[in-house]
């Protein structure tokens, strides 16, 4: 916390459309980790900790054996149903190193939806092969509410109703991702920009979400190396300090069946408060941000809850081009994000947030002193991490 630890390396595998990878998910994980360690100028034998989120497949036992990690001192994962853990995984590494339990931790996510279950099809969290569904999902799944797109659509419709947000704002979130992807050689959507007409004509998934409002299903892996800020300064790329991180969960937040109070929420109401308080800065100090796009609507909710714009002003602020690179007030998802670069459960956005501080982004915000990453909205607990210039 507060510049005790820093990111020293970033790396990723090649990215693929779902099913397009010639390597296994585990091989992709190992490749991303190797590249992050190489980027830092470290050796694999320097790694003494492994952290991820929602990943039981690529576990530390397999990784330490495959990568020759001789002495693991710390492992950890965050709770939660999805990409909400992308920033809190970095927070765990920051906490562990700050506490002295490890010195050099790899934080990563590997996800090959072409090899395992697809997030966009029924059957996640229960067996779609059975005729019945137990537990809290008994109140939703039998009504055909089964995927994240559908669930987030219900939340987004209410948010749009309460705050006079229209499809124009949703389009802006999709547009900036596809636009920024055009400059990023890693981006799967490079060469495929979208216009407003493309967006309007793309098929409906679950209203108000068109196809281009929804993250794709991809195969790939992303990783970072976190170490002490002192050690990072002596390494190949220098230090990108973690200024602050935060998680948030309110009483009954995330309760199933949309019975949480308040509803709808992206679960960032006190993540922002805690983050800005710990960092000693405010949203207006932040020149660039990466907001996990599962779907465009929840991004707008997250932007508002993190304190960048009151919800009733979102429509005007967003449609004024505030999220566009390079001239918007807050360019977001400068790599193309989950929509345009690749959907690796949001961890590519962590790498991009680090690159903005290094000056390495393909949609660089010049002189960025602060760089924010906000993890998956709509799933609890929410999390965010703020990087700064050393």
């Amino acid at each position: 916390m507060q510049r005790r630890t820093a990111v020293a390396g970033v790396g990723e595998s090649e990215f693929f459309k779902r099913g397009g990878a010639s390597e296994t998910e585990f091989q992709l994980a190992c490749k991303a980790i190797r590249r992050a360690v190489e980027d830092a100028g470290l050796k694999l034998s320097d790694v003494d900790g492994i952290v991820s989120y929602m990943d039981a497949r690529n576990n530390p036992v397999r990784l330490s054996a495959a990568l020759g990690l001789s002495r693991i001192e710390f492992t950890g994962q965050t709770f939660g149903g999805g990409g909400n853990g992308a920033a809190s995984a970095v927070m765990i590494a920051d906490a562990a190193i700050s506490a002295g339990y490890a010195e050099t931790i790899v934080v990563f996510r590997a996800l090959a939806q072409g090899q395992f279950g697809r997030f966009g099809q029924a059957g996640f969290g229960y067996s779609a092969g059975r005729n019945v569904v137990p537990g809290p999902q008994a109140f939703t799944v039998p009504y055909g509410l089964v995927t994240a797109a559908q669930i987030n659509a219900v939340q987004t419709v209410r948010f749009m109703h309460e705050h006079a947000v229209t499809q124009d704002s949703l389009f802006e979130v999709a547009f900036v991702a596809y636009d920024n992807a055009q400059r990023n050689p890693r981006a799967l959507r490079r060469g495929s920009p979208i216009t407003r007409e493309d967006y309007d004509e793309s098929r409906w998934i679950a209203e108000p979400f068109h196809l281009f409002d929804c993250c794709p299903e991809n195969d790939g892996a992303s990783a970072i190396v976190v170490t002490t800020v002192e050690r990072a300064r002596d390494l190949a790329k220098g230090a990108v300090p973690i200024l602050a991180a935060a998680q948030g969960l309110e009483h009954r937040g995330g309760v199933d069946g949309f019975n949480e109070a308040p509803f709808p929420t992206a679960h960032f109401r006190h993540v922002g408060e805690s983050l800005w308080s710990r960092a000693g800065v405010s949203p207006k100090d932040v020149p660039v941000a990466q907001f996990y796009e599962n779907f465009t609507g929840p991004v707008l909710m997250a932007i508002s809850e993190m304190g960048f714009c009151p919800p009733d002003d979102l429509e005007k602020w967003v449609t004024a081009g505030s999220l566009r690179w390079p001239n918007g007030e807050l360019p977001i998802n400068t790599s193309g994000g989950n929509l345009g670069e690749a959907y690796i459960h949001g961890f590519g956005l962590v790498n991009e947030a680090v690159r903005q501080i290094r000056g390495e982004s393909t949609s660089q915000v010049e002189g960025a002193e602060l760089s924010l990453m906000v993890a998956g909205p709509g799933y609890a607990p929410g999390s965010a991490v703020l990087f700064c210039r050393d």
Partner: protein
Amino acid sequence: MTRYLDGWMLPALDEANREFFTSGKIVVRECRGCQTIQHPPEDLCYRCGGYEFGGREVAGTGTIYSHTVIRHPVHPKLSERLPYTVVLVSLDELPDVRITGNLLEAAPEDVRVGLAVRAVWEEIPDPETGDVLRLPQWVPA
């Protein structure tokens, strides 16, 4: 009536949801100790920690709090039912309790926040127990 999502998954009955899905009434769980309504059910009351719950019957009327129209197939059994409308209903007697269902007897274009609705029930034999399931659904009031 024919089920709106005919052939699709059904709730697995348990002690906590049996009355909701079989009674043919809107019955939600109420803590016997402090009368807090808890929907969906949890093992202990979120207000007082109590373990004992009863059913509280309320009128089957409410308003649409939110909704979506689903047009993309996510399972072969649902593909033939597209498009279908999912609604979140705020109950008139318990506005903080929201019930998920489908909007029957209305076109997808007719769904909107604030629409007054009333409950109807779909009767289906439970594939695992042989009991009769009565799934609450919603039609414009």
